């Protein structure tokens, strides 16, 4: 039975294998080229810390100009591949059998429908999951090599970094694959299944991507720099809110009223120190900003992945139902 599915999926497996070889070769070569470029420009330290003085010059900027988009593209590849798995491996898995009538061939032999279904489902899924995992690791190693000069400077919540990292690619793949399998088993038409899978996948992913940040409790960072709430902020921070505290540590609700008293009558330049002093006299003791804590990223990954995994389980059950009712 495994052999039959393997044989049926042979074109897909060859495509996956060839794609992986090409992608691995390209990524490893580009990564090597990038690392030697880092050394030539003498900016290896910037990978670790992009805020160093040496990382502000012409060299790092030229480096980013030649490499940043390429790395970003590789991350996008990791984001797109799960959808492709759903469209071209998941959706046709049962839909094509129903379309060509070959499910009757399987249903009129000794193997049970359940075993037929399970074997097809697993044998087609494993190579795709392996592909995604290896691709993710390759891209990850490249992204890490670029460090703070690459997309990582955008922090863990930057969309391409988040989506191409951790459990997310595998969760997205499972979701897309099972969605495709279910829709294919339900509608029995490959083209319909592919179209619906794409639509549902994009909408669900988009919705959960915007929703997931709202699950994080932002942390409040206090600062004595009243006029610039972003002062001293490291790279990659996502600021959700800024504001002021009064001397007792309570949030000032009417900031405009306090600040209005410090606006000069004439058009003169007010120094930062003077303005700060005036604001403090009017009850703005400290400024604060609310940022998403980096260490919450793993939790958000797991939360989002578990939602996708839950949906995948539902789709598997739905597929079992759809195939079993098929005459």
């Amino acid at each position, binding site marked *: 039975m495994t052999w*039959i599915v393997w044989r049926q999926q042979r*074109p897909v497996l060859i495509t996956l294998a060839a794609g992986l070889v090409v992608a691995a070769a390209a990524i490893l070569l580009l990564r090597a080229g990038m690392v030697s470029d880092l050394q030539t420009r003498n900016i290896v330290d910037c990978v670790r810390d992009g805020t160093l003085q040496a990382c502000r010059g012409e060299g790092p900027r030229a480096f980013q100009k030649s490499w940043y988009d390429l790395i970003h593209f590789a991350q996008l590849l990791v984001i797109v591949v799960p959808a492709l798995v759903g469209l071209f491996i998941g959706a046709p898995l049962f839909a094509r059998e129903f379309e*060509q009538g070959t499910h009757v*061939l399987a249903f009129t*032999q*000794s*193997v049970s429908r359940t075993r037929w279904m399970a074997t097809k489902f697993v044998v087609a899924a494993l190579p795709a999951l392996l592909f995604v995992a290896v691709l993710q690791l390759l891209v990850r190693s490249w992204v890490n090599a670029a460090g703070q000069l690459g997309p990582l400077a955008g922090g863990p919540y930057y969309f391409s970094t988040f989506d191409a990292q951790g459990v997310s690619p595998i969760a997205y793949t499972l979701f897309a694959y099972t969605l495709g399998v279910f829709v294919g088993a339900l509608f029995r038409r490959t083209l319909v299944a592919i179209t619906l899978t794409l639509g549902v996948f994009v909408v669900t992913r988009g919705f959960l991507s915007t929703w997931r940040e709202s699950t994080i409790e932002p942390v409040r960072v206090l600062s004595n720099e009243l006029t610039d709430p972003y002062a001293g902020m490291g790279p990659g921070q996502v600021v959700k809110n800024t504001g002021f505290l009064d001397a007792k540590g309570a949030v000032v609700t009417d900031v405009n009223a306090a600040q209005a008293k410090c606006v000069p009558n004439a058009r003169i330049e007010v120094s930062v120190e003077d303005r700060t002093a005036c604001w403090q006299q009017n009850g703005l003791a400290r400024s604060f900003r609310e940022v998403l804590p980096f260490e919450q990223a793993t939790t958000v990954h797991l939360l989002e992945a578990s939602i996708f995994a839950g949906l995948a389980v539902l789709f598997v059950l739905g597929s079992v139902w759809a195939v079993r009712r098929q005459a």
Partner: protein
Amino acid sequence: MNASPVHASNVAKHFGRVRALDDCSFSLPSGSVTGLVGPNGAGKSTLLSLIAGLARPTSGTVSVHGTPVRGQMHPDVSLLTQKRPLYDQFTVREMMRAGAALNDCWSAARAFEVLDLLAGVDKDARVGNLSAGARTQVAIAFALGRLPKVLLLDEPLSDLDPLARDETLRIVMTEVAERGTTVLLSSHLLTDLGDVCDHLLLLDQGRVQVAGEIDEILGDHRVVVGPAEVSLETDGVVVDSSHTARQTTALVRGGSVPSGWDSTHPDLEALVMGYLRAARTRKLARQ
């Protein structure tokens, strides 16, 4: 419990409001070759898929060798469906390997024996590239590799040229002669059926119209011919009658020969044609 190879009792299958089969009861004797005939949409394919366990009857039971069929293929049964589904991208040899993988009981020797019959099928050719005749041969080899005791064939002869049709029937008849397989075969080709079938199952509107041994059935029917102006009075059942300006011809079941009418026993083709015509007349009358 009826242990006949295939036994149907009060089987019905409804698709929504459409009654594909209604109250069908019949038994196939062991080793018989039964022709399943009826107009398009009479429920022939539905009946075969119920026996194969592809679909479940709405009511009634189908049993194979005394075991009720429940949503799964009975190990003694093989079904060749109308579309002859095979994995097109496989070679013939791979297809046979698939047969072995899909079945608990599989005889590669038997399958290859069938492939080698007649002109023989190229075992390294892709199934999708085979001619209709060769494809049918592969499908039959696939069905016979299961060593079935009951062979269900749905339109095995459609879209075959006369030579391939003849050869396909020869394969089936060889199987019956060698292994005593019970065969139920649906076809529109009445002349071919006459050569191979010894039993008949005639369906119309999802109901069994005629079932039994062909010789008995033919003996029970008469074709009577008489003058057009005389009305036919018979103690049998008039299945179908047609009129020309000068004479009336009727297919009558049972009863005695009406006086003044010429009477002959029909051949299989005339009998089935009579029932098919009657079926169409009934259908038109309802519309």
